[in-house]
């Protein structure tokens, strides 16, 4: 309330009399000005007096005068509310009269004038209405239905807020909402026209009627609308998020923004929508781009003639989905960046940079160190098709030196060595299979197992019409020798991850239910099935795995390896949220050794990548309990925290903080899992604070914590060549030079940091961190679960589990291709991505950019945009393969 005039007689009862007394002195300012008036300029004073006059006249008996006064008042208000940096003057001066007018309004008879007054009261309520009264809305509904926007943005915004409250109230009272919805219509239309899409979306979400949006979007605002919709979906509880994304999908479809629509369809894992996109789009070139997006996501998708009519075209498109060109593109990138030269493990260790301690050169091969070198070599040269240990041309020295290196590994080490060939020839099925072939004829079962695994690795994320992997591996899964079986089974899992291949299921499920099969064979079978059917909720597979778990004896379930079986069950429900519940119920009947472990694993897998805060809290709750002996479920719970909260940046930050607490207060088994969780949260994204934490943990007195931290350092810097992590690891290698196990971990981490010589990423998130590739995530968490008991698995004889990481390996590149899919070099700007959601105008999407010409590497958090107008990209997100079309409107400047 504005201060009353001190000169006014106190106790003046009615507002009307009050008005009068105020008015008198105002007419003679020089004599009886109050202090406030003194500050006013001539102009303001005049305005004030004018308004007061109007107020008086509104209460006049003559409708003509009333009308005039209202009109003028309205005129005053409208001219001033257009911009809203402070309370507009007319409103300010009218504040004292709000009560008066309100009172007068009640006394008026129904008439047009009354509606007029209601309008004005509605505006005045904007600043006057008491909290929770929603008077603005009340008078709006009573007033005339004039153009809502004429009172300015602030009014509309305020109204929208009140509608939301009113809506909630009416809904609980089940009162009619029609009149509100009418108003909503108006407001949304206004917002959408005036670049306030977020407000419109917010309002519609409040009143639960997002469909309205579709009518109001147009060419100019649908992008910003959809952007807001998709990014707010992350913070909505289900099923609202799906609803929101569906709307976004519909809008994108409406405006033929198919790539965006495709991404949403992929996010929702909605195959029908994907098909719709293919059928709705009639541009072959754009379809090719869709195929690239599908290929990057790593799902298997069959085109039919409805989607693509021509056989030849369909074949070409299917080829893209099958990733057959991935190897070629990757090598193009490698040649462009000039890193084709193969690297040896010694190039990675850089022992010469270490001072002092350079250990006296050992004269005898150490199996452990050679194994580490095998992995490092495989990781570093992944996909390049050449290295200096395994693929050295066999005529280089007598007997073929590749054979020599192979046999520098011991027993099961040979499996990993032979399989490393698959990693080196990754994605290049044709020459890969040819090179691996010779190992099939070895007499050593370990070598054969490795060759089988290698075949699987080569075919990872590649599909081939002839299904060579299935043909080659299929016949080995029932062999006597458990090593060969494991090699074949694991190979199948890697090659067909996400394929949901019936044939494989029928081949593998019998093993699960074979009570005589050794535990390790069963475990790998379960994982392979989990990978093949990742996120499918396939009940038959789930049944088979559940039976396998029930069949196993008490002692077997106590084995560290057996803990991967529940994981395979979890993989089936990866990211599928509630779908897991039935299975989770069943898991309660399991042997108590594995029950809780299974429970945690299922929970964490089902909600992986959802950012569901409640589930994170649930898991944190489990971590705060004190364990009885031999319980292992807290490890998966800690990993689960990371899996769930990795969905978005904010969640990641919060999870990192929570994990720090666990580190301080948690028990040993939790502390062992924390580094791994940190590694998962920031995979291939070397954040300095996490790096420091891990570096500290890598000197922990508990060697398992240290090992996990070392491996996580590798994950953190995976494929980045990060100099700081490389330096840390180098120092660790000298610090732990006497501890073979830790040194092994350090070597593996070094290999990971230089993964693909820095061209690869392990991040399962792609497309501007919007989409989560299920197979990639499955690969990573399988590895991490194995790392929960490092000594028994990775440092034992199952080190080849490390190769599961291949599922997550993708080039972190932007490769632009022309309409014939040939690489095309164009200038692009690469810089730090900026969050532009809900920002006004056309904000810059990247900052601190540099201009390169494609192909380029994209680091974590980088975004690219074309630096030329000459071409138009067919995908709005410049990642992976992007087709460029010539811009017909482009004119060469000159």
């Amino acid at each position, binding site marked *: 309330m504005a201060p009353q005039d001190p000169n006014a007689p106190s106790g003046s009862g009615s507002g009307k009399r009050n008005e009068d007394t105020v008015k008198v002195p105002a007419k003679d300012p020089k004599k009886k000005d109050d202090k406030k008036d003194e500050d006013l300029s001539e102009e303001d004073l005049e305005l004030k007096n004018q308004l007061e006059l109007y107020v008086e006249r509104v209460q006049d008996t003559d409708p003509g005068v009333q009308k005039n006064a209202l009109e003028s008042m309205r005129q005053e208000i409208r001219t001033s509310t257009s911009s809203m940096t402070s309370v507009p003057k007319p409103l300010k001066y009218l504040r004292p009269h709000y009560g008066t007018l309100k009172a007068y309004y009640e006394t008026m008879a129904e008439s047009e004038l009354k509606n007029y007054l209601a309008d004005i009261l509605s505006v005045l309520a904007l600043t006057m209405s008491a909290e929770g009264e929603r008077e603005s809305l009340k008078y709006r509904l009573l007033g005339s239905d004039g153009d809502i926007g004429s009172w300015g943005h602030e009014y509309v915004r305020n109204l929208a807020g009140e509608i939301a409250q009113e809506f909630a109230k009416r809904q609980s009272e089940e009162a009619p909402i029609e009149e509100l919805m009418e108003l909503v219509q108006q407001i949304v239309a206004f917002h959408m026209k005036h670049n306030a899409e977020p407000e419109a979306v917010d309002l519609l979400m409040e009143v639960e009627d997002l469909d309205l949006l579709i009518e109001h979007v147009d060419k100019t605002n649908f992008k910003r609308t959809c952007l807001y919709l998709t990014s707010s979906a992350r913070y909505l509880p289900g099923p609202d998020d799906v609803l929101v994304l569906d709307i976004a999908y519909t809008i994108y479809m409406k405006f033929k923004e198919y790539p965006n629509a495709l991404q949403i369809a992929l996010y929702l894992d909605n195959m029908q929508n994907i098909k719709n996109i293919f059928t709705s789009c009639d541009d072959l070139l754009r379809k090719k781009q869709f195929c690239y997006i599908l290929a990057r996501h790593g799902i298997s998708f069959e085109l039919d003639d409805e989607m693509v009519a021509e056989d030849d075209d369909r074949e070409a498109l299917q080829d893209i989905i099958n990733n057959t060109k991935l190897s070629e593109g990757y090598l193009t990138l490698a040649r462009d960046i000039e890193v084709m030269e193969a690297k040896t493990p010694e190039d990675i260790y850089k022992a010469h940079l270490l*001072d*002092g*301690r*350079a*250990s*006296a*050169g*050992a*004269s*005898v*091969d*150490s*199996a*452990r160190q*050679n194994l580490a070198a095998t992995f490092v070599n495989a990781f570093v040269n992944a996909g390049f098709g050449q290295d200096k240990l395994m693929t050295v041309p*066999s005529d280089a020295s007598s*007997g*073929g030196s*590749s*054979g*020599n290196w*192979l*046999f*520098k590994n*011991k027993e099961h080490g040979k499996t990993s060595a032979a399989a490393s060939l698959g990693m080196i020839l990754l994605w290049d099925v*044709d*020459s890969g*299979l*040819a*090179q691996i*072939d*010779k*190992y099939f*004829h*070895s*007499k*050593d079962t370990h*070598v054969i197992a490795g060759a089988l695994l290698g075949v699987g690795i080569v075919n990872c994320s590649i599909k*081939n*019409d*002839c*299904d*060579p992997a*299935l*043909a*080659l591996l*299929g*016949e080995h899964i029932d062999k006597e020798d458990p090593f060969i079986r494991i090699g074949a089974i694991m190979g199948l899992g890697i090659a067909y991850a996400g394929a949901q291949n019936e*044939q494989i299921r029928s081949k593998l499920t019998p093993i699960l239910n074979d009570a005589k099969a050794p535990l390790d064979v069963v475990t790998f079978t379960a994982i392979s099935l989990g990978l093949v059917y990742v996120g499918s909720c396939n009940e038959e597979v789930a049944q088979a795995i559940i039976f396998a778990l029930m069949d196993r004896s008490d002692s077997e379930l106590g084995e560290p390896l057996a803990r991967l079986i529940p994981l395979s069950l979890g993989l089936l429900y990866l990211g599928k949220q509630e779908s897991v519940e039935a299975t989770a119920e069943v898991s309660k009947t399991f042997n108590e050794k594995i029950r809780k472990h299974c429970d945690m694993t299922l929970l964490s897998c089902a909600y992986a990548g959802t950012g569901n805060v409640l589930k994170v809290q649930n898991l944190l709750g489990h971590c705060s309990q004190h364990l009885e002996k031999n319980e292992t479920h807290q490890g998966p719970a800690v990993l689960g925290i990371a899996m769930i909260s990795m969905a978005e940046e904010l969640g990641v930050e919060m999870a990192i903080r929570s994990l720090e607490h666990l580190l301080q207060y948690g028990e040993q088994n939790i502390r062992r899992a924390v580094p791994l969780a940190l590694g998962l949260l920031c995979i291939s994204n070397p954040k300095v604070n996490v790096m420091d934490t891990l570096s500290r943990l890598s*000197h922990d*007195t508990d060697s398992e914590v240290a090992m996990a931290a070392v491996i996580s350092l590798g994950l953190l810097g995976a494929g980045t060549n990060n100099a700081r992590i490389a330096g840390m690891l180098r120092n660790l290698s000298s610090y732990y030079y006497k501890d073979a196990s830790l040194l092994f971990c350090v070597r593996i981490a070094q290999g990971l940091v230089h993964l693909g010589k820095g061209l690869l990423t392990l991040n399962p998130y792609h497309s501007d961190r919007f989409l989560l590739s299920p197979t990639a995530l499955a690969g990573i968490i399988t590895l991490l679960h194995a790392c929960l008991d490092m000594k028994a698995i990775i440092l034992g004889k199952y080190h080849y589990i490390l190769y599961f990481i291949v599922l997550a390996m993708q080039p972190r590149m932007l490769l632009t291709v022309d309409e014939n899919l040939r690489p095309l070099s164009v200038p692009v700007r690469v810089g730090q991505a900026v969050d532009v959601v809900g920002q006004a105008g056309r904000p810059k999407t990247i900052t601190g950019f540099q201009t390169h010409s494609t192909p380029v590497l994209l680091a974590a958090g980088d975004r690219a945009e074309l630096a030329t107008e000459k071409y138009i990209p067919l995908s709005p997100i410049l990642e992976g393969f992007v087709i460029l079309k010539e811009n017909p409107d482009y004119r060469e400047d000159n």
Partner: protein
Amino acid sequence: MLNVSVKWQKELLKAVEIDTTQPPYVFKCQLYDLTGVPPERQKIMVKGGLLKDDADWSTLGVKEGQKLMMMGTADEVVKAPEKAIVFAEDLPEEEQALNLGYGAGLFNLGNTCYMNSTIQCLHSVPELKSALIKYSHSGRSNDVDQTSHMLTIATRDLFSELDKSVKAVAPMQFWMVLRKKYPQFGQQHNSTFMQQDAEECWSQLLYTLSQSLRSTGSSESPDSVKALFGIELVSRVHCVESGEESSETESVYSLKCHISHEVNHLHEGLKHGLKSELEKNSPSLGRSAIYVKESLINGLPRYLTIQFVRFFWKRESNQKAKILRKVDYPLQLDIFDLCSDDLRKTLEAPRQRLRDEEGKKLGLKPSEKSSDSKDKDIKMSDAEGSSNGSGESSNPTPDEGAMTGIYDLVAVLTHKGRSADSGHYVAWVKQESGKWIQYDDDNPYPQKEEDITKLSGGAAHSLTCQLTMPKPTYPCFGQRSYDKGGRFSPLLISLPFFSLLFERLQLSHQRHNAFSLPSDVDTFAFGAVCGGSIGRHGGSSRGSNFSDSASGGVATFPSSGSSRGNSSANFTGLLGPAPGPTQGFSNGFLLLGVLNAKILGLGPLNYLYAIGLHFTQIKYIMDLLKRTTMLESKPISTTAISGRCLTLHDGELDIAKVITKRDHELSPLDGSLEYQRLDPSLPCKGAHSHSLLSPFCRISLSLFPFDSDFNSPFPCRFGDKNMFTKINYVSDLFVFLFLGTSL
């Protein structure tokens, strides 16, 4: 007849005909012609798997124009190498040792670093090893006494053990025999063995070996030790006054490098060492006169030993002192100009050859390091540090025994520390591989050659490490003065550390009587310790916190009862002799040394006043700091001052400076670690609470050298990391408690 295309590697074989009436083997033979891959190695993918040789085409559903894929190569099948690869992990332990490329370390048996270092240096001399191997039990001749014989045997056994073992060796047998033969090494001080001079150990051991090895009667080398280490000197003794001159020859085992003000380089020191003045009776003058003795080398050993004379006797203070002057030494020493004319002549020819070869090499490869040249004979020695000479050895010259007078540095025995009675000896030994290993007792560290020359000043390593006890005084805690009214001083009691594990300091009231308290301590504030008996006694121990008021506040004993009697017994049992008022705790300390104590974390020590860890050697402190990445933490000088909180940035930077300032007034210093648990629940009387009891709760650790009297603030290192988890590996440490006494 069908036409299919076959994809093989990167090739596409078009229009291959299939005769569907023939078995697939025929088709494979067709492909063999095209690709050269033998049929049995072909893998052809058809629907549902691989094409079998005897399959029926009609059931396979191969269609006209279908693309088949064939896998297979004509490459040679990989074969395992004929000779199985041997892996380090498979080797028995002894062979793993070889693998390391260097020998094992030696455990410190209590100030035996002098001995360990000496052994490591001598162990690097292969000729000595082989000579020892020839020495047999039975071969003892009569002119060697039993103890020498035993010492030789012990040396031989120890050497072979060093060669075999991966892990550090405990030279027990050798040490016992050494003490038997030379009882001076068994000297004890405060019931612990004293630090000894490595030079003495070196020369005694060499002497013994030369005696016993000579007598083995082996014909070829009547005196192998002498051939290896003996230096023949020819001296001219000249009297300036009388002009008398005589010459004499002698054989010594080491050259001395005297260090004076003008000596900056080893060479200069050696020259000094070869010139000496002596006073003797001159027959011609009939009285004693000054003679000048100038020696020259007349015969070179294979291994030349040089001793840096760094320790000398300070007459005025009656103390041994150490010269810290930096004296450079080269990696390759040419002593040609110290040789006699005769020797020079014999050296000339080989030297010329060497120069020629080097010239040749330089022409070809200017960067070739001289030490690589095989025909060079080198030996040099230097002992650095105090009076210890250390032997160094030359590369043997296998093909031509010709000496050139040029020696390569092969081993260094150094003394770290500022004073003669304390410090630490380490040996640096060059391996056959050319790498240097620093043997620090049981830890061998590979080092770089450059680092060796950096050792040239003893001062570089100024921290001392010897365990010597401070005077048994009752140190005053903090900076309080000894005023008559109420003196506050902590009493030092040492405990073996692991006792804390059992009981978290649950001392019961009765147990305290086990201490014989100094008679002049009337009230013994045990509250701090007793309070440690965990939460449930918390109430009773409240009254027993230190009262630091000047009125000599009486601390009451908590009646915590010995509810856990069993385990307390353990505790006191380990307390050992009580620290008396005059002999003091030092005895306690020494007797209670614990080797290989394991600490599993102490848990909350709620009312503990302060615990320190006492390390016998400062290197353990450094080690610990390194492990906790606290090397950069600064020693701070405040723990015991009232009302001061510590931060990481307090204090002075240089621990050495703090010590050296008062070098002469201190007994040798030791390092200790202090641990404090500061519990807010602890009642602190009023605002003037003692800093250690100040009401904030955090664990802090500080590391400080042990002062002889606690009058001054301790310089200590401080940090709030949970350092106790890091101590697991530290052996040889003690714990002490500070307890307040009110006099």
